[in-house]
Structures are given as C-alpha cells and as structure tokens.
C-alpha cells in the first residue's frame, strides 16, 4: 500500500480553519499545538518522575 492511502484519512485539500477573537487570528492547527505545549509544560511540572523518592516533610 502506498503512503498516499494514508493522506486520504484526513481532508488535506480543504481551506484551513481559523479562530477569530477581536484582532487575534490563529489557525486551529497552531492553536491546538500551543494548547498541547501548555498541557505538556504543566504535566512536566506535576507528573511524578520515576525513581524519585518522596521527600519526607517535617523531619
């Protein structure tokens, strides 16, 4: 199967989708990437790191 079959899974030949908010205009794709980066940043701070021992408080 050639890779062009995969291209048919997503509509790639339509106009791009955009978000408008006053003077701010951003494509949905770029907005999604920014949201994912913010999510990854927050997860990187709060997700427990494997192998890290919990610090015992008040000792």
């Amino acid at each position: 199967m050639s890779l062009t079959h995969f291209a048919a899974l997503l509509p790639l030949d339509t106009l791009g989708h955009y978000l408008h908010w006053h003077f701010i205009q951003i494509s949905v794709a770029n907005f999604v990437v920014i949201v994912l980066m913010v999510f990854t940043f927050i997860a990187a701070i709060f997700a427990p790191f494997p192998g890290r021992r919990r610090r015992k408080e008040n000792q």
Partner: protein
Amino acid sequence: MTYTEIERQWTTRLRRRFVRLLPPEKLLPDTQPTYVSSWIYVFGVTTLAALAVVIASGCLLALRGPQWWHTSSVGHFVNSLHLWSVEIFFFAMVVHLWGKYFMAAWRGGRALTWMTGVVTFLTSIAAAFTGYVSQSNFDSQWISTQAKDGINATGAGAYFNVLNLGQMLMWHIVLLPLAAIVLTGLHVILVRVKGVVPPFEEPVKVSQ
C-alpha cells in the same frame, strides 16, 4: 626541550585552561542533584535528540534530491521524518525554554547559557523558514511570494532574497544548520561548565 619551554607552549597552556574549565567529571558527570529528577529537565535532551534526527534525515534528503523525496514513497517517508522531527524539536524547545524561564535558569553566571539558547531559537526559526521555501512545490512558492514583501520592507531583501531558491537552499542546508549545531554545542558545554542551576531558596521558617 626544557621544562619552562614546555610550560610556555600554547598547547600546554590551552590544555590546562580547558581542563580547569571543564574537568572530565564535570563534562560527563555520573550523578546530578536530586532536584534534577523532574520531567521538566527532560526537555533539553529531547530537543537535542530531535535535532539529531532533523540533521540525519536532512542528510538523507540531500543525498537523493527533490525528485526522490517528491515522488517515491520512501522519499515521502524521509521527508515526513524530517518535518515531524522539526515539529518535535520546536515543541520540546518551547517547553524547555518555558521551564528555564520560570526557574530563572540564567542565575549564577548562566547568562551566556540563556543567551546561546535565545540565539539558537532565532537561528532555528530562520532554518525552518528557509526549509519551507526550499520545498520546491506550490507551498514553498506561496510562502516565498508572501514573505518577500515583508522581508523587502525591512531592507534585508537585498542580501536575503526569498525568491532565490538556490540561495534559500544553501542557507537551509549549509549556513543555518552549521550555526544551529555550533550554538547547540556551545549551549550544552556551558550547561556542563556551570552545572545545573540550584532551585530558589525556600523562605526560612522562624519557629515561635
């Protein structure tokens, strides 16, 4: 050769200086402070790994040329590998830079580490841009004809002509990767020289 002659040689002096600046145990340490065991520290090396894939896949594209990457399925695959590693590179770099920003990781004489990061970021944007206009398809035609007015308005168009495919390709595959690799190398060496920045001190609790 006498002892003092050896002492005065530039090779001796340079070696001593390098070893003093970056002894082997600092260059390749075996342990790190406990605060480094957090996911936020993983993004620098993720950026580095993505950059390695970008360079490797770019070299494969250069080997076979546009007829190959536009028409064969393996060519499409390597082209996609190049694009998606760039996406991961920028994604990881942005999370890395947010992390370093909120840690104020320029503290303690690490200003040059931060600044090499900033310049690498700007260089990478230019590298991505010249990549987009080097695709040699309708997308690159559209981008370059849109960009030319903006760049000409700054006056830079006299030296950096986005409609000149040859020039854009040379910037993309020679000058900008070279700059990105050198800057990244410098950045990582600076991190090793200075060591990982310690966290902010917690305010001292006074017991009553």
